[in-house]
C-alpha cells in the first residue's frame, strides 16, 4: 500500500525550514528518503530503521516513529540546491531486500 506524503508541494525562501511527512496505514519496517531533481535520477538520502531513531546529514534530518507508522523529513536553513521532489519509500515486507513502495512525492521549490 502506497505511503501518503504531505504536503504535495511547498515553496520556500532560502534559509527557511520545511517538514515533509510520510505516513502509512500498514506497519513500517523502515523508511527510505530520496530526492529527485528535474530530469535526473532519484538520489538516496537516508534510511531509517525501527527504533524511533533520527538520522541526518548536513541540514537534512529525518525521524521515524514506527508506532505512529510515520516518518518526517526536516530541511533546515534551506538552500537553492534543496529544490526537487522528495520521495519516501517503504519496503513491502520485513526483508530490506524487497522492493520499495514509494509515495507520490513532495515537490520542494527553494527561491532566492
Amino acid at each position: 500500500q502506497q505511503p501518503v506524503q504531505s504536503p504535495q508541494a511547498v515553496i520556500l525562501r532560502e534559509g527557511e525550514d520545511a517538514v515533509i511527512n510520510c505516513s502509512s496505514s500498514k506497519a513500517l519496517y523502515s523508511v527510505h528518503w530520496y530526492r529527485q531533481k528535474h530530469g535526473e535520477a532519484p538520489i538516496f538520502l537516508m534510511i531509517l530503521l525501527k527504533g524511533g531513531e533520527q538520522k541526518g546529514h548536513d541540514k537534512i534530518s529525518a525521524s521515524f516513529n514506527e508506532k505512529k507508522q510515520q516518518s518526517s523529513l526536516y530541511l533546515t536553513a534551506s538552500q537553492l540546491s534543496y529544490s526537487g521532489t522528495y520521495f519516501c519509500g517503504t519496503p513491502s515486507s520485513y526483508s530490506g531486500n524487497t522492493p520499495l513502495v514509494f509515495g507520490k512525492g513532495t515537490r520542494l521549490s527553494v527561491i532566492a
Partner: protein
Amino acid sequence: DVKVTQSSRYLVKRTGEKVFLECVQDMDHENMFWYRQDPGLGLRLIYFSYDVKMKEKGDIPEGYSVSREKKERFSLILESASTNQTSMYLCASIGLYYEQYFGPGTRLTVT
C-alpha cells in the same frame, strides 16, 4: 561510486513495436528493479529480480516482461508497445545497506 546505466535517455517508438530497455550496474548487486514514473503517480514497480534468471512481478507487470541473463544486466521488454506505456522508466539496484541506486532513466514515447 556505484553506477547504474540505461541504454537510452530518450526513445520514440511506434505502437505495436517490440521495445527493449537495458540496464547495467557495476557493483555486483543481486537485486535489480524496473519502475515507471508518471506525473502524479510517483514510482511504480513493474518487475524485479533477486538473481540471474529469477524474476518477480511488481505492481504493474501487464504488457511487460524482463530478462536477466547476467548478474549485471536487467532488461525490460515491451512486447507490443502501446501509447499508455509512454512514460519515464527507471532501473535500480540495491546496495549493501538496502539503499537503492537509480539509473538516469529512459523517457519512452510511443506514438
